[in-house]
């Protein structure tokens, strides 16, 4: 059996699963230290199971958390981080941190150094690597109170040699200093990839502490099992990897929610609509994984370029306030105060939930209070809700072809069972813990994105090399060796570059290894 845990900003949910079956589930409040809430949720699912201590049957615990994202947003527990860029004479006009908000830059210390090294688009060196320059930069950084290091090299996704050499050198001489390599987390786009590496380095202390605390707590509960963390793309990484690459877990909450919902509905290709109290998230799953956004993503006002799920959020939910003339629903919402302020709860604010109750779609509060509402208003209001959700659904799809639609969230009662663009509307059971289920069912993945000069290596050779590396990364992240499958191959010819340059991206996933 597996346990999935989701640590959200408000709630910590856990679910115990035997194969595809939900054995028990638990919802508790998230605690500031994270660990206490996780332990309570785990105790809940283990006790709520089948009348006996279940510790023995558990094979693994999977966690999804927005904790690192919150740490970043609140500027809490960030390590002083130096960025060392391997660039030689190139890129010097725009040094690391050049487009950061002042506060966050100050929180990291803003220490940086531009060093010899870096590569061209085809893998040639811009300038040669210099050991002494790296050592000197490190000594200077440490003298300035720096605790962690991010390395970025020009075209390191094409040729990571200089970043790797610098990391090796630092680990040899200063083994206690965490080092993040930009080539291991981001794509082409120097500033965005470097930013992601710097954020990761800054989070590495808090990530290491959190991961250690959770493992300790699990051991205390008698759960001596492997612990995994969910990544933004819906795959897992093992605890050591998570401690080193916390940015990869940053956006795992919405991803797990989408994947969990589709799993419960038994559908691999679907639109998932999660209607909350204030907003609705709409995303799309392709072969069970969320489609990634193609543009730069801002985290705490810093531009980054690692892969995040492509979601559309609209300001519409169960608590959205309804105005009559002209008719408008949201963006303001009564939020958690719905149980005091909505009409069906005896309040005076007309909310979207009141409309749904008046239309007989749900029995909440005192339905009689909603009966006095003008039927025309109710009908037009719900039509407006439907129109806006349908529009968002249409925007996330890549074609007009109807897809199954999985509907989850407390506000899903606002919608009926027919929506344009949906071949069917599915409302799965256990949807309130979809995110914990998403964590529990996750597989392990590895991804590679590089530019190859096909004149030099040949297309098949390049594809094979990329696939091999993706598989190796999945195995390194905890997948069973020899049972990893390549699930995505994308080739983009860069025709304006010589040498038949092509960008190849490969993603591989596999079942967790059991050791």
């Amino acid at each position: 059996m597996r346990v999935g845990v989701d640590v959200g900003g408000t709630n910590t949910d856990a679910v115990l699963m035997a194969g595809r079956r939900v054995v028990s589930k638990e919802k508790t409040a998230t605690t500031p230290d994270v660990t206490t809430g996780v332990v309570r949720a785990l105790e809940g699912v283990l006790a709520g199971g089948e009348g006996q201590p279940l510790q023995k049957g558990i094979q693994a615990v999977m966690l999804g958390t927005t904790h690192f994202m919150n740490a970043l947003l609140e500027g809490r527990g960030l390590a002083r981080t130096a960025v060392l860029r391997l660039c030689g004479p190139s890129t010097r006009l725009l040094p690391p941190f050049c487009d950061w908000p002042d506060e966050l830059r100050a929180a990291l210390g803003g220490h940086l150094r531009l060093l010899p090294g870096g590569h061209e688009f085809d893998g040639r060196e811009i300038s040669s690597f210099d050991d002494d320059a790296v050592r000197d930069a490190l000594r200077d950084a440490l003298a300035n109170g720096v605790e962690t290091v991010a390395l970025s090299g020009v075209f390191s996704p094409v040729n990571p040699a200089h970043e790797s050499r610098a990391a090796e050198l630092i680990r040899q001489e200063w083994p206690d200093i965490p080092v993040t390599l930009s080539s291991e987390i981001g794509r082409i786009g120097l500033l965005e990839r470097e930013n992601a590496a710097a954020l990761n380095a800054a989070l590495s202390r808090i990530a290491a502490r959190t991961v250690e605390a959770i493992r300790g707590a699990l051991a205390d509960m008698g759960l001596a099992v492997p612990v995994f963390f969910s990544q933004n793309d819906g795959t897992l990484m093992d605890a050591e990897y998570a401690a080193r690459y916390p940015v990869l877990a940053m956006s795992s909450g919405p991803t797990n929610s989408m994947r969990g919902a589709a799993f419960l509905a038994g559908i691999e290709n679907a639109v998932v609509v999660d209607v909350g109290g204030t907003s609705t998230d709409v995303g799309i799953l392709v072969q069970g994984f969320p489609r990634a956004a193609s543009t730069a993503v801002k985290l705490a006002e810093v531009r980054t370029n690692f892969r995040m799920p492509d979601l559309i959020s609209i300001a519409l939910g169960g608590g959205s306030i309804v105005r009559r003339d002209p008719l408008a629903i949201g963006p303001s919402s009564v939020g958690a105060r719905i149980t005091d302020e909505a009409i069906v709860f005896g309040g005076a604010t007309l909310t979207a939930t009141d409309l749904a109750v008046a239309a007989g779609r749900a029995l909440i509060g005192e339905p009689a209070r909603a009966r006095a509402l003008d039927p025309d208003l109710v009908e037009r209001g719900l039509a407006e809700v439907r129109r806006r959700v349908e529009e968002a659904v249409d925007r996330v799809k890549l074609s007009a072809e109807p897809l199954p639609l999985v509907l989850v969230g407390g506000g899903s009662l606002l919608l009926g069972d027919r929506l344009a663009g949906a071949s069917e509307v599915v409302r799965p059971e256990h949807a309130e813990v979809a995110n914990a289920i998403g964590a529990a069912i996750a597989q392990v993945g590895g991804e590679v994105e590089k530019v190859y000069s096909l004149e030099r290596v040949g297309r098949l050779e390049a594809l094979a090399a990329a696939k091999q590396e993706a598989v190796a990364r999945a195995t390194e992240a905890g997948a069973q060796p020899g049972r990893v499958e390549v699930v995505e191959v994308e080739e983009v010819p860069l025709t304006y570059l010589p040498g038949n340059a092509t960008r190849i991206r490969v993603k591989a996933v596999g079942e967790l290894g059991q050791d």
Partner: protein
Amino acid sequence: MWQIDEDALVSISIGAGILGTGGGGNPYIGMLRARELVREHGPVDVLDLDELPDDSRVICVGGMGAPTVGVEKVRGTESYRAVRAIEKHTGERATALISGEIGGSNSLEPLIPAALARLPVVDGDGMGRAFPELQMTTFFIYGIPPTPSAVCDEKGNTAIIEDAVSPTWVERMARAVTIVMGCAPVFAFAPMSAADVRRTAIPGTLSLAKSLGEAVRRAQREKGDPVEAILTTVPGRVLFQGKIVDVERRTTEGFARGRVTIDGMGDDAGAQLVVDFQNENLVAHRDGALIVTVPDLICIVDAERGEPITTELLRYGFRVSVLGFPAPPLLKTPEALAVVGPEAFGYEAAYVPLEPRATP
């Protein structure tokens, strides 16, 4: 005369994106680079064509190479060296700089050497929009020799092209050097007199980009209609409003070609618009009838935010407004149409000028 400060840079980068008609590259990195130098050296002066002193020497500056390389091996101050290299070669100091292409990232390149050398930039450019090839600038269409020109990389290498039999040959030679240099050099070319610039440059395009950007930013801030704000800033019309239902792409001969199909909404419900692109948007057909062609500008913007959507980001489901703007007069002469008209891009249609909407 006016000045470009940090705030103006942000507006210009948005306006230049709109004038990029789907291409021209992302001005974000260019905005950051110019901002670093403006912070260090102060705002850059902008001169109208009329304000250029008669004895001016004006040099044109732009980036060469692949946009995907430019976002990784971010350019620095190479264009300053490229300007100095031309000065050294001709023995004449530059007194002002100008952009070859206002659409997209090249709009901001002249600001780099301008800030460093404390030179003014000219309020104008050689395209009034973006086009895919160097010979499509009005400077070359109206007979300015492209040489001497200089290509500089970040390592300190400089190549001078002393002579070329045509602008196309300059492009070919510069491209060969560009590849050796690692695909992100800068290019300075076509030293011109004040009279040359007044005769061949498209006037007022930096001011136009700035006004467009300001209008969009104001509308976003005040929750107004950004599309309306754009159209009150520059004469033009809404060609179509609708939803993207198909995007077809192919990459041939180094260009991103394709077409986007949009189903009408609101007043355009029931109709369909198809826009063909080659890096930039070229022609638009409404229900099979040709309604706009190059050199007139076809811009696809997000219907709600008014922000331009470049061809590589077009995607099924986007709600868009398609705007059309008449090309500047210098692009509509017979000489210009031979280079940038519909036939130059392989369409058999004759150019029919777009009329802006009637002013209320």
